């Protein structure tokens, strides 16, 4: 691990001031990903600015009937928070599908959004990687790419965003609140993470010296007809090969509102307005779900080791929509997929 300086931020404005004063400084909160990247020499900051003591740890109701989640709420506290389990059970389920109990106790809301890909080559400093070292090349495209993207990839990068929580936040139309030298702003969740294009070193549209202060959920929560279905190589404690977050509002058998997001398949949680449009107003049945799955994956492209993910994602979408329509969401402790 590289040597670095350590400082604590006293408030959000101080955090922004401190990071702006040192171009090689980084924020640290839960540290579960950053400290690992420090040990691997992938991250080499001059200074860590500890924001873990800032008062951004509450979940509050908004005037619009939504919820404002402080950036530093730990993943486990969020997953078990009564307002989340009652109003946004899809989010609670997605959080509990990720990592381990220990890591969820440490990891924060903002850090979950900002965690880096787990592409093997990004972690291996002996190999080229455009995300780690722009212009050096992508080792995954012709290398081991079982975990990699089938949607939205570029010739520069086929890495995936590893989060489960973010897949649910995308499906729920969350907003990311940030503060920076130019003031505060909100970023729609679908605009927060980006596709790699030819600048894969940028995971998000967060600007230099900006800090996440909160994630806001709108009032609509899909409390009955939802599911988070995660398919992985082990039953627990593994990153998704494919995951599906879905929420439906049904009137009888007819779908009034639909959300569908995929994890493990792209550089960001993947949503497709045409697939959701194909669900709205239709009967909640196998042929409707199949059409949505077709649309979600119409531009999917596999590489040598991950082409299986296209069929896997297709089946997972149909299964998750079936679970949601029946009001029988995937359990995150009994892993039988019904």
């Amino acid at each position, binding site marked *: 691990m*590289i*040597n*670095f300086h350590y400082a604590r931020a006293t408030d959000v404005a101080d955090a922004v001031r401190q990071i702006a004063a040192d171009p090689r400084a980084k924020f640290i909160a839960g540290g579960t990903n950053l*400290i690992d990247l420090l040990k691997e020499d992938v991250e080499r900051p001059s200074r860590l600015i500890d924001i873990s003591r800032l008062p951004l740890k509450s979940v509050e109701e908004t005037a619009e009937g939504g919820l404002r989640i402080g950036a530093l709420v730990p993943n486990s506290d969020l997953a078990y928070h009564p307002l989340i389990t009652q109003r946004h059970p899809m989010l609670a389920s997605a959080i509990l599908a990720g990592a381990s109990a*220990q*890591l969820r*106790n*440490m990891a924060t809301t903002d850090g979950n959004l900002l965690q880096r890909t787990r592409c093997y080559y990004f972690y291996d400093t002996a190999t080229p990687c455009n995300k780690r070292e722009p212009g050096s090349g992508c080792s995954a495209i012709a290398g081991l790419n079982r975990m990699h993207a089938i949607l939205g990839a570029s010739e520069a990068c086929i890495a995936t965003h590893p989060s489960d929580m973010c897949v649910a936040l995308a499906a729920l139309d969350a907003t990311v609140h940030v503060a920076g030298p130019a003031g505060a702003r909100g970023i729609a969740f679908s605009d927060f993470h980006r596709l790699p294009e030819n600048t894969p070193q940028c995971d998000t549209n967060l600007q230099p010296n900006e800090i996440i202060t909160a994630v806001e959920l709108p009032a609509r929560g899909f409390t009955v007809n939802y599911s988070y279905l995660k398919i992985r190589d082990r*039953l627990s404690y593994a990153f998704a090969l494919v995951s599906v977050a879905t929420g439906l509002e049904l009137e009888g058998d007819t779908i009034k509102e639909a959300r569908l997001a995929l994890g493990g398949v792209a550089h960001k949680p993947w949503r497709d307005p045409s697939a959701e449009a194909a669900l709205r107003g239709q009967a909640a049945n196998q042929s409707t779900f199949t059409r949505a799955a077709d649309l979600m994956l119409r531009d999917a492209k596999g590489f040598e080791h991950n082409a299986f993910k296209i069929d896997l994602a297709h089946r997972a979408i149909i299964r998750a929509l079936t679970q949601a329509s029946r009001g029988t969401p995937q359990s*995150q402790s009994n892993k039988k997929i019904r």
Partner: protein
Amino acid sequence: MARTSTAARSTIPAPGKIPIVLTINGIATQLEVAPWTTLLDALRDHLDLTGTKKGCDHGQCGACTVLVDGRRINSCLTLAVMKDGAEVTTIEGLATNGVLHALQQAFIDHDAFQCGYCTPGQICSAAGLIAEGKAKSSDEIRELMSGNICRCGAYPNIVAAIQQAMGQS
């Protein structure tokens, strides 16, 4: 083993050590740590509390699990300096007055280990699990203990031991 780079270490002058206070197993302890010293290394190398084990050193095996302010965490992915003022409980702090903690006794009763290397982390993790109160069924225990790997494969006995201790708590 984590790789270390000699070149990386010399890129900036080494910042000075930072004084911190940790209350470890009930005893307030002052120490000075470099910013990059993990809680795991502080416990093992600075304080000779070697009950907490270094397995993968990357948050993947759970051998380093300790309780910080009552919550189970991976001490290998925690900077000691960030926990200044915290209460830390390690495997050395679970027994009281020479009487084993219910989990320690249950692990013996159920033969819930073979080599024993993961056991301190398993027991601290299980103590956190019981305090959280979210696991009732064996499925839920397995899921919420999935951050602790046992290479010897003692999992069925570990679950049985945790169920025994849960029944007593």
